[in-house]
């Protein structure tokens, strides 16, 4: 068995001199099946003592977070999951307090969270609770107190949950080690106990975290703490250190299927014929003898039988496909029988690829293109909502079925944020994408976001209009240099029936600079329907290029005027 994440936790809280305890804390591990993707969460919150509902706010934060975090999609990154929950909690607290600005009447709380996933600790923090890390005997404060001092002994909370709709949370990532001890505390504790006390107490308790927590709280009380006193201690006992051999064993558990041909039976699928074969995989049309349904079997190419990165990506493709349910994305079927080799089963889509459709339908009208692009975009949005990037959208990866519905088919390059965070000993080959369709940020090694998929969709949309690419075709070794002197050819050069605002919208969608491109698909789709006057650039080209006809007409008119004038002068 490979080692999994194991954390020992202890906490202790006392109301101290106050009437009620407005602190709240808790920790929870994900169920076994989700431990890898969701990990372990620990939360501490301190309801602001001056407000009436501080305790309620703190409890809502802790319970809400621990309940919601583990139900976020597995594909989401920790950051995205936490952000979504923080935003929801914050706006709920803010509305509950009736939008009163004064902190003392509202539901306001500090909130500090650690999420342990794979070998990383993700720390989210707002307010003046603290998180310390004790590693190899030395202690370090990981968070910064969001507190503003107005005099030497007087301060107030500058940032907290429920104060403002605009939420600013500190986020930090940290590589963890076995034996790390994280201490989470509220101000009732750390204002009255020094860092040295904390480390010496934990050291003295020799691993009994419960006792350490209790001693620390009591120490703070003895030092005249005037607030609720709480502390939570977590120690990492085991990290999910997957050894290479285990991972390879898992990956190669299922053998590659042999070369399949018509009539062969494999796990109850009868092969009808080969649909396509490339140097990376084969597609077969097959009959599911259990249901009588026609399906497509995708099998890995024997070229990669000992390439762990390829097998990892191949299995990932199925994992991704099964998590997306959208009419514009190819369906991958859940296996109903035990599989004895590596393949996956997808719905059979008789129809044509978008590439073929473009060849058969040159110069389609604006509305046809818009409805098609909207369908593809809906499929893409399904990926983006799950915090996934498709990364390899191209006309060959889009199919138009017999009913005229466009569907995205290949998930072999999809990047899943929530999975990318899990450390893996399998080295993945860097994606270079498909030339002409892959956004320049992949080549320039810039940060890649949803905009990268929008670029690809923009190029495809442009190509649907005129059968050409918006930029000069990339050379085989397309590289940074190629992207530096990229000239956008206005769509109106090829099609004069397309309004200029549509061209402007496409120009923005395929902008080589991701910062100047659309950030969200919805903006792009909106601008494709409604003229966006802001984008309508001034046409600075000389008249000769802009409108040659008008140029020559004007020249001729002036010349003929001169002729007339000369005739008149000579006549006199």
């Amino acid at each position, binding site marked *: 068995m490979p080692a999994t994440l194991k954390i020992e936790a202890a906490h202790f809280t006392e109301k101290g001199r106050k009437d009620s305890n407005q602190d709240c804390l808790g920790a929870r591990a994900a169920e076994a099946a989700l431990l890898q993707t969701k990990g372990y969460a620990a939360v501490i919150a301190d309801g602001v003592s001056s407000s009436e509902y501080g305790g309620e706010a703190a409890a809502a934060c802790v319970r809400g977070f621990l309940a919601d975090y583990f139900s976020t999609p597995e594909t989401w990154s920790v950051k995205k999951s936490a952000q979504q929950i923080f935003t929801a909690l914050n706006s709920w607290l803010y509305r509950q307090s009736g939008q009163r600005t004064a902190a003392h009447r509202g539901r306001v709380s500090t909130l500090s969270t650690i999420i342990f996933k794979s070998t990383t600790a993700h720390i989210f923090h707002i307010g003046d609770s603290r998180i310390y890390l004790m590693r190899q005997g030395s202690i370090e404060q990981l968070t910064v107190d969001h507190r503003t001092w107005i005099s030497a002994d007087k301060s107030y909370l500058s940032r907290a949950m429920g104060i403002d709709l605009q939420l600013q949370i500190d986020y930090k990532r940290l590589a963890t080690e076995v034996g790390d001890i994280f201490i989470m505390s509220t101000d009732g504790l750390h204002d009255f106990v020094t860092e040295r006390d904390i480390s010496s107490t934990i050291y003295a308790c020799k691993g009994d975290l419960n006792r350490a927590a209790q001693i620390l709280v009591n120490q703070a009380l003895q030092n005249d703490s005037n607030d609720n006193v709480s502390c939570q201690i977590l120690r990492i006992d085991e990290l999910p250190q997957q050894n*290479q051999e285990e991972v390879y064993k898992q990956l190669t558990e299922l*053998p590659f*299927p042999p070369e399949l041909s018509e009539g*062969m039976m494999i796990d109850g699928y009868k092969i009808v014929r080969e649909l396509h074969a490339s140097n990376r995989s084969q597609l077969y049309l097959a009959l599911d003898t259990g249901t009588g349904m026609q399906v497509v079997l995708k099998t890995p190419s024997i070229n990669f039988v000992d*390439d762990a990165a390829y097998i990892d990506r191949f299995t990932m493709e199925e994992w991704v496909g099964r998590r997306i349910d959208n009419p514009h994305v190819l369906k991958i079927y859940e296996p109903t029988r035990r599989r*004895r080799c590596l393949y996956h089963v997808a719905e059979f889509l008789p129809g044509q690829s978008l590439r073929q459709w473009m060849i058969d339908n040159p110069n389609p009208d604006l509305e046809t293109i818009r409805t098609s692009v909207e369908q593809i975009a809906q499929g893409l949005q399904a990926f983006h909502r799950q915090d996934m990037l498709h990364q390899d959208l191209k006309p060959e990866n889009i199919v138009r079925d017999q009913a005229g519905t466009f569907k995205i088919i290949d998930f072999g390059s999809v990047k899943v944020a929530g999975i990318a965070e899990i450390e893996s000993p399998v080295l993945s080959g860097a994606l*270079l994408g498909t030339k002409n369709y892959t956004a320049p940020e992949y080549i320039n090694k810039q940060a890649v976001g949803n905009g990268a998929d929008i670029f690809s969709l923009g190029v495809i949309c442009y190509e649907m209009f005129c059968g050409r690419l918006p930029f000069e075709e990339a050379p085989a*070794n397309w590289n940074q240099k190629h992207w530096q002197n990229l000239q956008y050819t206005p769509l109106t050069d090829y099609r004069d029936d397309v309004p200029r605002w549509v061209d402007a919208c496409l120009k923005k969608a395929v902008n080589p600079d991701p910062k100047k491109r659309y950030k969200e698909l919805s903006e792009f789709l909106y601008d494709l329907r409604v003229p966006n006057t802001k984008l309508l650039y001034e046409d600075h080209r000389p008249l000769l290029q802009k409108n040659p006809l008008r140029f020559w007409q004007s020249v001729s008119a002036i010349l003929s005027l001169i002729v007339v004038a000369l005739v008149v002068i000579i006549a006199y």
Partner: protein
Amino acid sequence: MSSSTKLNLLSFTGKVRALHLTWFAFFLTFVVWFNHAPFMAVIRETLGLTNSEVSAILMINVALTIPARILIGMMVDHYGPRLVYTCLMIASSIVCMFFALADSFLQLLMARFALGFVGAGFVIGIRMIGEWFPAKQVGLAEGIYGGWGNFGSAAAAMSLPTIALLFGGDEGWRWAIGLTSVIIFCYAFVYYALAKDTPEGSTYFKPNKRGGIEVTSVGDFWFCLLMNIPLFGALVVLTWRLGNLGIVSDSLALIIYAVLAAIYAYQAYHVYAANKEIFHTPVPEMHRYKFKQVAILNLCYLITFGSELAVISMLPLFFLDTFDVSPVLAGMLASGFAFMNLVSRPVGGLFSDKFGRRKTLLITLAGLAVGYFAMSSITSTWFIPLAVLSTMMCSFFVQAGEGAVFAMVPLVRRRLTGQIAGMVGAYGNVGAIIFLAVLSITTPQTFFLVIASGSLLCLIAVWFLDEPEKGMVEVAPDGTVHVIDVH
């Protein structure tokens, strides 16, 4: 979304088009690489060369190929096969024209030295075919590419003497060689216009590691470094030989040795860089492979392809000197050796699939040992058709052996196929240099004997080759796929 399961060679679309364009490019590079062979006798006479100068020209023709393979491989990574092949063809056409116009031994030598670069064309096409063909067809496609391309040397031997005769005179050879230069120059542009690097819309993945070959144990690491030595050792031998012949001065030889040592160090560093993890973390059991397999295949290719390159360089001259026939006839007779390529190379691949890799290699090596022993005993008293028949018999085993070697290469370690194929291929050139160096010191008879005894030694090495494991999946007669549990 459809593709034929069978390879339709009559079509000229998609991958088959890529195959046709590319094998013909390789064919032409082979024509140019060996267009001197049928004319060595004429050139010897017109320019008044000595026998040792002739053997120097033959040797130097294959010298640059080894380092060129490394360079070309890197260029293909960078610029794609289409552009690199085009440039190689244009460059070789210019050098070839230079050779056609040469009027001194030194000029001939320099032209042939530069033409060694053409021999590295093989690497480019292999990459191209790999991009276009699915796994189950790639073996056949590469067989066609290699076999039909190698046929170029036979085509040169058969046709060029006749063409030279048509132009007539002592200088006819210049016209014939010049013609090949013009043809390859024109074809370079045809290739550039018609070929494409990858199928429409294929996704690119950057390979995980490039450079040094990966090994999986510390012992194999040293073994690999050892096996890299002959790649440069062959060039050391060549330099030494040229020094003996007075072509390379002592000081130049020292410089060449230093450069070779530096390249070896660079190569060794890359092998280290690709493998430094194995010194502290052992590779998982299931991920290991034995470098011994690569080493044995290297030796087999050294004997088979190495001897083929050497023999097609010298055979026309050998027939001419032995039987006192016309140069045209000598060329025709000698072309019998490379002629078999069209069928024997694929047959070697087919046999090893059917009867087992190791067994096929053992049989072909034994066959070619017998063949070379037979060739070593050819004298002027032999009936000429019998002599030709024995060379053809010998070449059948030589090329079947080449096919069998390359049928086994992908089974050593799939992921490393490209790198292993590169190393094995380079050993073919090592063989050519060594055998031609032997020829330059001794008689053709001894030369054939050396190859024959070399193949007997290689036979012993093949005895230690492990037969690759069969897959864990079997198909029953009724079509049901059975997976054999090995857990």
